[in-house]
């Protein structure tokens, strides 16, 4: 088990290194371009060269990479071109806001989809199963930007009970969190439900469930003690990987509702060529994704005795 974790950590570090090289190559290889982005298009060649010289852009490429990486590791991401302040000052609060949004969504998605998935998978082919299955397909078929518009129309235009934007300009507001969270939930719960259902349905057809039933265990015990334990291994991984997906989802949702979070920041940075901000956001996003992937893998191994005691 320890070996496994160490090896997993190794892959994680390697992944991050490769990602950092890719980002560096993609965004900083053309140093003239960097200068234009930082100083603006109307600067003279001389000014740019001065800036490049001052910031060490004339050093050999590998030295530039390592110094860039070194700064990155100690948390110095450079200054935002757009906001003219250190990237970290903007990034961390934004990440926290997104964390709140994500947590709110997950707090509903996880219990809801696990319960629905188990109920559907327990008796495959039953009316309940059909309703849940089709329902979850329909909700996952509505893209977030579509449901954002759709829900706004209902709750803002027709019912007029929720605010249409979530910029939180007057401080944190739970009411403003509802619509963005709802959009995330609506899109995501269907997927997790279907995965849970599939896993549960598969477990219900296994021979060991037959053994448990024919052993004379009450149906409730068969489900709770024999089926769930095995059926929830797969959804666990799926849920952990949803965090990766969530980082995508928030871009759309935050954009749609003007929510000041990480996703909106990344989008703005990209549209405004805010170079160092893009780098920082991308690295953070991949870091979060890789970490959750690792937790998912380790958790999967831990939950699965066949691998744990191999």
């Amino acid at each position, binding site marked *: 088990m320890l070996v496994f974790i160490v090896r997993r950590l190794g892959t994680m570090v390697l992944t991050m290194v490769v990602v950092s090289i890719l980002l560096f190559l993609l965004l900083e290889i053309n140093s003239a371009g960097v200068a234009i982005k930082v100083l603006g298009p109307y600067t003279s060649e001389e000014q740019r060269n001065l800036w490049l010289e001052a910031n060490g852009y004339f050093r050999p490429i590998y030295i530039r990479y390592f110094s860039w990486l070194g700064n990155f590791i100690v948390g110095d991401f450079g200054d935002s071109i757009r906001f003219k302040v250190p990237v970290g000052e903007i990034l961390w609060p934004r990440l926290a806001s997104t964390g709140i949004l994500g947590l709110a969504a997950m707090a509903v998605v996880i219990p809801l989809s696990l319960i629905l998935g188990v109920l559907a998978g327990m008796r495959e082919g039953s009316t309940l199963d059909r309703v849940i299955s089709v329902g979850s397909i329909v909700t996952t078929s509505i893209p977030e930007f579509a449901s954002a518009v759709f829900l706004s129309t209902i709750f803002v235009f027709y019912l007029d009970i929720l605010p249409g934007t979530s910029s939180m300009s007057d401080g944190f507001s739970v009411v403003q969190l509802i619509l963005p969270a709802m959009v995330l939930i609506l899109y995501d719960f269907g997927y997790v439900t279907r995965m849970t259902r599939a896993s549960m349905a598969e477990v219900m057809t296994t021979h060991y469930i037959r*053994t448990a039933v*024919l*052993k*004379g*265990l*009450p149906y409730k015990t068969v489900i709770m003690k024999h089926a769930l334990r*095995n059926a929830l291994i797969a959804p666990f991984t799926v849920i952990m990987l949803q965090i990766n997906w969530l980082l995508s989802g928030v871009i759309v949702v935050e954009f749609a509702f003007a929510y000041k979070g990480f996703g909106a920041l990344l989008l703005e940075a990209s549209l405004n060529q805010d170079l160092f901000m893009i780098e920082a956001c991308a690295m953070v996003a991949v870091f979060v994704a890789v970490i959750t992937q690792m937790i998912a893998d380790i958790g999967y191994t831990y939950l*699965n005795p066949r691998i744990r005691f191999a």
Partner: protein
Amino acid sequence: MTGNGSSRHDKYDGPILECKNLSISYFTRAGEIPAVVDFNLTLNQGDSVGLVGESGCGKSTVAMAIMQYLGNNGGIVGGQVIYKGRDLATLSEEELRQLRGNEIAMVYQEPMASLNPSMTLGRQLMEVPLYHEHVSEAEAAKRARKILADVNLPDPDRVMSSYPHQISGGQQQRVVIAMALLSNPSLLLLDEPTTALDVTVEAGIVELIAEIAKKFNTSMIYISHNLGLILATCGRVNVMYSGVVVEEGAVDVVFDHMRHPYTKGLFNAIPLPSADKTARPLVAIRGQLPLPHERPAGCYFGPRCDFFQAGRCDVPAHGSTLAMSSVDGRPGHEVRCARWSEIDWDAHKPEGVSGEETPMGDEVLSITNMRKYYELHDNSIAAMIKGKRVRYVKANESISFVAHESETVAIVGESGCGKSTFAKVLMGLETATDGEVLFNGDDVSSQSVQKRSPKQVGSMQMVFQNPFDTLNPSHSVGSQLARVIKKFGVETDKDRIENRVMELLDLVKLPRDFARRRPRQLSGGQKQRVGIARAFAGNPAMVVADEPVSALDVSVQAAVTGLLMDIQREFRTTLLFISHDLSLVRYLADRVVVMYLGSIMEQGTTDEVFAPPYHPYTEALLSAVPIADTSIVKKRIILEGNLPSVMNPPKGCPFHTRCPRKIGHICETKTPPFAEDGEGHIISCHIPMDELRKVDPVIVQADSKSDQPAAE
């Protein structure tokens, strides 16, 4: 509640189980499919009844109906299942629950799949008393531990805290049996409990089951496709065919005086280790099992029966089929045949596979000291520190033997014996680590298949085990055969390739229009025939057949075996027949090579290997084979312990951990020498040959003198 179990048997003195005119159907999109029709059974206290038949005959469905567990699409459509006087159909779900696992318990075919992978075995066992007798945790654990000892599992405490994958298949099955016995049930259902196990492990389980029946006085229903196992475990037998019982009675009566042509056909189709092809040719049952909705009216076996008489056998007399009639003079012997009393079995001599000997030719294959080691990279931290990152798995160790033109050499062994690796090296998918493999005079030991000439490749081909994936489901039979012909350069012209495909189909006795069919439209036996045609497409000098019939039903087995032998004889092909089935090996092999954990234990002519002196492993293997012949008496040898892992084989003699004749320290430390008893009969054992010669034969005809091996 203690004592519940034992008192339960005393209170009730009627039959434990009665099935009355039981009919079971499955309901699919295509409509109702009758799986079992008119099934009757009366089981008294302590009875053991066998249900025997080929796949699809409905035997497992009967067990599931008794358990009232037929799934969403199955149901009892007629008749009753009565357990101790209570009709199970009238019971509530809760009443059923109290019966299941408590009074009626079941043992399943695949032990690994039947145990919950993420729950300790102890917990799974303890659940039975916890939920049925509401005892305390401590009491449940105590009982679980005791029952594990009862099923002869060493170290019950370790087993209790293990997960299923941590113990071997044989041990898993013992745990499943223990689980079934925990509540001391009145009725035990065993559904092919040993089919997934190796033959020496099977022997141990069969013995355990027989012991249980005696010790607990439990009534048993034993379901199997293997007649020999039924003989070893049951008092009565029901022979099933296509959803109906065709014959029932006491085991020795049915085995010795069968009256139904199907029962007779089954016995004619199975090889016995006491006889070879010349003494007792196999007779296949023609045709194939009808699908449930294609069953003929009257006798379901009619179209395949040699005694079929129109106007009598095809007239339904009882529902859609015939009625059972008693065979006079023998109580309880019934048969579902319209003509049983008229058939003169002595006058009927079915034409079997002719067993004439063909003279051997020149040496085709000669293997000397072939070894195949795999490197295994150990990535654990401990190994990194020690610097021992690479370990060797000795898949094949010092393999030496020869095979001649037109000769059949059988390679026998259980799982992990290295048969598959050996086949891969021969075929050039792996290269040997060391040694020489001369094929037609060329050393191919280090020549991968890519480096062999098309002619070389075509002259050594293989027949595979699993009919369900021996053919590519995406391509037609014809195109697959054509590809082989083209690849080996037998023909190049399109029309001539087409012709050759037709010839090959003729060769394996399949209709020519099968060329256009997809594999899924073929039955298992037909697919194996195409597989044989494919192997013979390049006019091979040698064919390696890897368990070619083990996945087929017995009646089909005989036909495919016969076909393979006929073709071999016609082309004077060398046949390397890899098998775990000693009966079949006895039947068709000229020479036998016995392997265990990658090494050859014994080799010689078939007669030599099947008679003393034996290698102790051969002896155990022979003793483990179930034999469907009441006149045979076998020596009883049950091997202790597990089959060791190939990854970590024992030092010295690989068999020493389980050897009942182990002589001492030398077995654990030194690789035994190859001792010769007459020319070509080689035994690898530390026991002196003179000692081994004194060993009694394992298989003896009961009425013959005990010093006469049955084989002679």
